[in-house]
């Protein structure tokens, strides 16, 4: 007996863009996240075109106008050498974002790869990879990075690698956990029941679930890396060679003069904190946009 083919009026399938639009609306409904995103975009623009946008050059120094407070000419004031602090902050942003973004990408790629392999693999490989992950997780990443950076004199690529290679363990654990949860879910079982191949299940069911949580987590890792990097420069008191400058350096110089010239510390630190807050807020906005729980009508 030939089974019947059901025929009816054609249904509409919402397009991918419609689904993205829904996600965007949920994100945009969170005013703080939207503001944070704008702030991040502004920082990105400054980081990319800082040299063109900066009011002064890094070489500019007016020794007669040292340690001046914020003014129209120098909105962030000047330091003891008469260098414009706004310019320094804009250059610092470039370095900080390059390291923060680069190291986060390294951590993400390494961590997700190891987590996926571990979650999909057999017992032995899984055990091995997880021991390695635990080791890296427990390892004092700050000391490791400090050692590497010291040994290689703060070369940007090395700094990126050093941070990336100490921060991937969280990604690996998260990814593995997610893969394991999804792998034994009713969703995957119902996929197997309709005859879906492993690849179909991995791409349609497991990956989207994993990706969403990872995107959210990424924002928080970036926060961690940027903070670490600032701490590290603070620790060494030195940063990259000019014309690169890190927030850590600015801040460490600022602490020395904080009593007389508050703007040297407060304004760079404020900028850094606003960057971190923007990242966290955007991370939270993404969480709401990608996991529409509580959005149930019934």
């Amino acid at each position, binding site marked *: 007996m030939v089974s019947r083919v059901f025929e009816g009026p054609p249904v509409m399938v919402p397009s991918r863009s419609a689904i993205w639009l829904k996600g965007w609306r949920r994100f945009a409904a969170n005013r703080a996240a939207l503001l944070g995103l704008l702030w991040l975009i502004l920082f990105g623009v400054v980081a990319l075109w800082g040299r063109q946008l900066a009011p002064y050059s890094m070489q500019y120094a007016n020794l007669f106008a040292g340690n001046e407070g914020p003014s129209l000419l120098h909105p962030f004031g000047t330091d003891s050498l008469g260098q414009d602090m706004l310019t320094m902050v804009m250059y610092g942003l470039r370095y900080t974002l390059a390291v923060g973004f680069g190291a986060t990408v390294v951590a993400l790629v390494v961590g997700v790869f190891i987590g996926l392999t571990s979650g999909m693999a057999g017992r032995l490989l899984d055990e091995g990879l997880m021991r390695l992950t635990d080791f890296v997780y427990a390892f004092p990443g700050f000391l490791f990075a400090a050692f590497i950076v010291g040994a290689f004199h703060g070369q940007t690529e090395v700094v990126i690698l050093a941070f990336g290679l100490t921060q991937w363990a969280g990604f690996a654990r998260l990814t593995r956990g997610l893969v394991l949860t999804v792998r034994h879910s009713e969703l995957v079982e119902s996929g197997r029941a309709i005859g879906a191949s492993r690849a179909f299940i991995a791409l349609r069911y497991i990956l989207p679930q994993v990706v969403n949580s990872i995107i959210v987590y990424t924002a928080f890792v970036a926060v961690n890396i940027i903070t670490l990097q600032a701490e590290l420069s603070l620790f060494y008191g030195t940063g990259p060679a000019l014309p690169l400058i890190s927030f850590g350096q600015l801040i460490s110089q600022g602490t020395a003069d904080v009593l007389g010239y508050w703007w040297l510390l407060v304004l760079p630190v404020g900028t850094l904190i606003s960057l971190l807050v923007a990242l966290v807020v955007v991370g939270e906005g993404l969480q709401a946009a990608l996991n529409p729980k*509580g*959005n149930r*009508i*019934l």
Partner: protein
Amino acid sequence: MSTVLKIEDLAVSFPSTDKRIFAVNGLSLEVERGEWLGVVGESGSGKSVSLLACLQLLTGDAHIDRGRAWFEGKDLLRVKRKAMRTILGRKIGMVFQNLANGLDPAMRIGAQVMEPMLAHALCNKPEARRRALSLLAELGLSDPERQFERYPFELSGGMRQRVMIAVALAAEPELLIADEPTTALDTTVQVQVLSVLQAACRKRQMTVIMVTHDLGVATNVCDRVVVMYGGQVMENAEIDAFIQRSVHPYTQGLKGSMIPITGSSGTLQQIQGSAAIFHQVPVGCPFAARCPHAFERCQTERPKLVRLGAEHEAACHLVDQECANVG
């Protein structure tokens, strides 16, 4: 007979993502001393929400819009939190459906059963232990001494539910509120739990409010049944009147949805659709959208409870009209 709990015109709403949900919309009911009252309805009918509201157990964002809940001369909705603590557990015991939430996973069974007696300073520790052991035995747990030292995860679902009942009864409350106490259990275990619950409460002459979606449970253990929909009482009837003479279309729909043990598949009577969630206070009869007999008046005017017998009332315009025609 005296009234133990009297709820008057209770309304509760809470926010959801975009619109407010009006869960309870003017509920009034009473329960008499020694009576087993069944509160029946589908999910979303407001049956659990209304009782939780009376016990001040609703989570933060729920809002009690109006109403009174009289218990021992006090309005439970306006009692201070601190005073509420001397009522909960001591005067009013509770048993919930969710086995996971009811018991502390890190505490031995014995300690949990003894806690209400010690917390309300009813007796000293050795006495509490003696009472707890006899309570566990009364509820049919074999080898209570051994169960006393075990943790909740070591017990089966049916055993855990009986321990929850023991905790609820430990301080000898006057009123027991049981919210779907047997819903998560297998049928043979359900009967077991109902049977010990019934025996224990009868012995103590307790008043019981049993919230359930299962008409089989309600009609087998309760003295009176209140049917709720849309946060309002649809029908309120003494058990024989409920079984034999229920008139509300929703009650009849629920009865028709009960699957008979016949073995031959006849057509089931059905209610169309599923229980509605109200984003505004229903203007007319909340059931109108699903009711096969709905007419114009049902959309615009809220039906009042009409008395049909000594212990039988229903809120339905159809019934109201028939009464008017006869009278």
